């Protein structure tokens, strides 16, 4: 401290001399910053109209699963969210993950021209404009979406690669049940097919019971219109079901009396009914996003471990964290009120002693479903838990992060 005093005095002198035409020379240290103005961000009309993030914030999505987006044909395939940089529970729309079955071009849809048709086993087929839909009672809810391919592997280098195919946003729209009541369901109506307007016209079969429970036709996302990458002007939200069901650019709903075996349905088939069930409604799942693989702890001491927990079964009721490789589990704090089928942010104050260890998190949802370790899953299936074991259905297993003595963090499956 003593050595800095002369420098401070010198700075104060020069600062007085330069009052008005402020320059911050190499001789002046960072002390006395109240007199210092940072450089300016040059803003054009575009930034005034629609703001940018700081140039120092560089967190971006990455192509997932080895296939580039856009690919050779200009199709978007799978793109993962940078969960390692996430705070709170809302994924910014620009960073929301994307997934398509065949790959898709991004359709440029004029919302004034767009129509939703509901037909099939209904008393009154109806078509709606977006403005029609906005006249009807709306709901605004937080919901996550997760891709069936969101699976950790030993090769994954960070949480974006292990878990980045899930995101959470605030969605606004009309309940599908409201529209189906307008149309009137005929007897025998047991499934519905939802279809997008993109060039591939992706379509999936879903149970009418889900439509009448909580599906949303969403035109709003995070306080503005749904982004084109997320289905502008209208997308179907199927809370807690695998991502493929959340039909983007929604143009048509056909009420039918059987599973319709669309291309997406066929691609989703399993041989074992148990695996099929586990590839449908998403199980309880959580991951620590800080510290996570690829990050570095500067030294021992207190850190708030932070992460996300979610379940297709409802709201998260409990999150536990282990800082000793799963021997002891400690209750984490859920930030705010956990919502149904939404990411919940959790935190846990950890005093790192500087020793090598392993961090894990696990969650329990409102149904009492508990996130399992891979060893527990292997035990259920009566299979040996070794390098060849692959989690059947959507992988909701506990993710271990290894903390080395030097503070580096790596994937515990590696």
């Amino acid at each position, binding site marked *: 401290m003593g050595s800095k005093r002369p420098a401070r005095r010198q700075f104060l002198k020069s600062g007085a001399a330069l009052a008005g035409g402020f320059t911050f020379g190499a001789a002046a240290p960072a002390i006395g910053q109240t007199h210092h103005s940072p450089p300016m961000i040059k803003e054009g009309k575009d930034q005034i109209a629609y703001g940018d993030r700081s140039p120092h914030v560089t967190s971006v999505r990455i192509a997932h699963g080895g296939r580039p987006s856009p690919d*050779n*044909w200009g199709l978007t395939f799978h793109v993962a969210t940078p969960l390692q940089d996430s705070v709170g529970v809302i994924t910014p729309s620009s960073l929301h993950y994307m997934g398509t079955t*065949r790959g898709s071009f991004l359709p440029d849809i004029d919302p004034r021209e767009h129509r939703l*048709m509901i*037909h099939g086993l209904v008393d*009154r*087929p*109806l*078509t*709606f404009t977006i403005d029609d839909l906005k006249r*009807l*009672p709306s709901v605004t809810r937080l919901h996550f979406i997760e891709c069936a391919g969101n699976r950790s592997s030993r090769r994954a280098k960070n949480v974006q690669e292990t878990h980045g195919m899930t995101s959470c946003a605030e969605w606004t729209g009309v309940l599908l049940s409201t529209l189906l*009541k*307008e149309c*009137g369901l005929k007897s025998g109506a047991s499934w519905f*097919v939802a*279809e997008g307007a993109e*060039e*591939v*016209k992706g*379509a999936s079969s879903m*149970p009418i*019971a*889900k439509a009448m*429970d909580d599906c949303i036709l969403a035109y709003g996302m995070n306080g503005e219109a749904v982004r084109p990458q997320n289905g502008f002007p209208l997308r179907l939200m199927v809370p807690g079901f695998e991502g493929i069901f959340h039909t983007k650019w929604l*143009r*048509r709903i*056909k009420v*039918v009396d*059987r599973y*319709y*075996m*669309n*291309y997406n*349905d*066929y*691609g989703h*088939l*399993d*041989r*074992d009914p*148990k695996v*099929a*069930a*586990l590839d*449908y*409604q998403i199980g*309880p799942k959580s991951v620590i996003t800080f510290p996570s693989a690829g990050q570095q702890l500067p030294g021992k001491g207190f850190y708030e471990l932070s992460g996300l927990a979610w379940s*297709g*079964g*409802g709201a998260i009721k409990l999150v536990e964290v282990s800082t000793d490789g799963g021997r002891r589990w400690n209750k984490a704090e859920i930030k705010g009120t956990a919502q149904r089928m939404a990411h919940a942010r959790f935190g846990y104050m950890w005093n790192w002693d500087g020793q090598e260890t392993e961090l894990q998190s696990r969650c329990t949802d409102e*149904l*009492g*479903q*508990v996130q*399992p370790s891979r060893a*527990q*899953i292997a035990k*259920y299936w009566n299979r040996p838990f070794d390098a060849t074991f692959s989690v059947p259905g959507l992988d*909701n297993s506990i993710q271990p992060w290894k903390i080395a003595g030097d503070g580096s963090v790596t994937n515990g499956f590696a």
Partner: protein
Amino acid sequence: MASLKVLALALLMGASVLAQSPTRLRADASSGQAYGVGRTPTAEEIRAWDISIGPTGEELPPGRGTVREGAALYRSTGCAGCHGATAIDGKAPILKSKAPPNVDVWARGRILPLRAPFATTVWDYINRAMPLNREGTLTPDQVYSLTAYLLFINDVIREDEVLDATTLPKVKMPIGNDYALLPEWKPRTHRLKGYPH
């Protein structure tokens, strides 16, 4: 005072009208609609929009196709350009199994004209999604023929079979019933009965 009481009563009555359930405020009680928003499409509009072909094939249009015509169309409509002349040598997904027919169908790859439980799914997908950038330009006859060709090269149908709205839904796919049906879904229940995770 009396007039104030009347006013208060009127306000209360007004509030009770506003608080009525939507079913009491039906735009048109006879239609069953609560809000009366939206427009009734014509039968013609529904036919034009409805490209879903379900397992029964009830929506299939008239027309017919053969393996021979399909083989020619596979080259002339551009399929071969992306999927390869032999259907296994292109940049787009392969359309023919590399494994012989005696191998278990689940081990022969996720190939639509082989793994699909219904041939109608093959017709539906070619019709809605192919060729890339020219979706919806194939005629029903062309789609029947291309479906026939892809089923033939995967040993699902014979070379002389003709596909139309009657024969296509009857094609026996190699998978038979050997695939899982989804469980009946109910809200607020475990994703798999008896599974704690």
